């Protein structure tokens, strides 16, 4: 488990190395393709996140006190966004997830490329990730 802030800095550094939008987008698409895919049996309505313009399914499992996230979406750019989030949030303990700051999103200029609706979608995803952490804590208490 790497420290969440360190991962965030890493991502910000990666994105700042691109000097045009096409490269940034191609990288997002690449990330999207690398997303740890959700087991098809969890791709159910119950795991759908509301507020996204494309469908986003999110699933979590606990492994050794840490939360492992898998996800999928029908849009590749959305997958890229989730891949970034999962890189930060997955394999962390619930407390860290609950307290995690997310200002790295502003730093990589993602919001510039998101419509308000999609920005809402992004917020919904983060909320959902944190909700899983809350739920997992309640369960283990």
């Amino acid at each position: 488990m790497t420290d969440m802030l360190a991962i965030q800095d890493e991502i910000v550094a990666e994105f700042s190395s691109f000097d045009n939008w096409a490269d940034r987008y191609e990288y997002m698409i690449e990330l999207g393709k690398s997303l740890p895919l959700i087991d098809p049996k969890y791709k159910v309505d119950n795991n759908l996140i509301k507020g996204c313009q494309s469908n986003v399914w999110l699933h979590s499992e606990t492994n050794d006190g840490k939360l492992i996230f898998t996800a999928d979406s029908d849009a590749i750019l959305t997958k890229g966004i989730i891949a970034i989030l999962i890189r930060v949030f997955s394999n962390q303990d619930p407390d860290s997830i609950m307290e995690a700051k997310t200002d790295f999103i502003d730093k990589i200029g993602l919001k510039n490329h998101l419509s308000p609706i999609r920005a809402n979608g992004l917020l919904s995803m983060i909320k959902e990730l944190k909700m899983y952490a809350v739920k997992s804590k309640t369960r283990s208490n």
Partner: protein
Amino acid sequence: MLDINTIRKDFPILDQKVNGQKLIYFDNAATSQTPNQVVDSIVDYYKRTNSNIHRGNHKLSIQATTAYEDVRKKLHKYFNSRLPQEIIFTSGTTQSINIITLGYTDLLTSKDEVIVSEMEHHSNIVPVQMLCERTGAKLNVIPMDNQGNLILKEFDKFISEKTKLVFVSHVSNALGTVNPISYIINKSHEVGAKVLIDGAQGASHFEIDFQKLDIDYYTVSAHKMCGPTGTGILYGKEELLNKLSPWHGGGEMIDEVSFEKTTYGELPHKFEPGTPNIAGVIAFGAAIEYMDNIGLDNIQAHEDELLKYCTQELKEIEGLKIYGEAKNKIAVISFNVEGIHHYDLGSLLDQFGVAVRIGHHCAQPVMNYFKIPGTVRISFSFYNTKEEIDLMIKALKRAITMLQ
């Protein structure tokens, strides 16, 4: 203190002649004038941003959506609502009131009662009458006294567990009376009734804090507060609006549509079907900013001064009777001159360049109370001056001489 000369530069419309005379615009309660800053925001929108909102995914659409939603946030802060989505954009006060009266159709029965005041604008009477007709609910009318005050002890008699809704204006457009809305709201809440405050004449004159006043519903027209025509807001507490059914269907207000089952979206979209007045809303934002910069305290102090001065001058005219002399009153003076029809007076004032409103001011019950067909109504805004009042008084005196 306001620097009126500087302010007036923002209103080129005021600087013109009508009928060969300097225009004196004293019809502000009907519609206020629009400063350059607001007009510029419209031009800017159409020349740089124009695009349909919400469902769009391209740059212009994102910019337009952001600008539109920013105005919602601005109004949410300006009026201190608890949540931005409690601010619903409508085409104006009239539409706002109708959204509420339509929405309550399912919630009232013939056992329920509704209260309205005798002093209301038709926009706050007719929809309420329609609602009562549809549901069989009983309509009680708070009477007023001859100073133009609501008779609160009559209101106290009406209010009961049966009362579900109360409709009262913040300020009467015909008389200028500022109504005791806190008293009415508190009394109503004691029995569980909800109150709609028609704020068409309120928001342009003083600060309003929705949460502090514990307001259930409030309505505003942008065109009466330096904004454009064709837009306004309905404010409602989230939990109340959530319980209300939308009676207008269309795009944007739904979650999912199929012929088997359609589900409605969340606030504020539920009550904003179809393409809204995007340019209008953005310009409304510019108007709020403009008024906020001038400062509502300054506005109120200046308008009060005009009101006092003008009232005093008018009272010296023989045979002139002012309707509406409530202690708590603002920026509106309704009057008649003995033996002269308001219509004749208005026509002559117009010839002298003075724009006033004449007639029943969409408040026929008020006219019926005073047993008159109408009045001449002067109404001020912050850009008006004492010099304009002097010119008006002079014109009025000449008109009276001509007509007598």
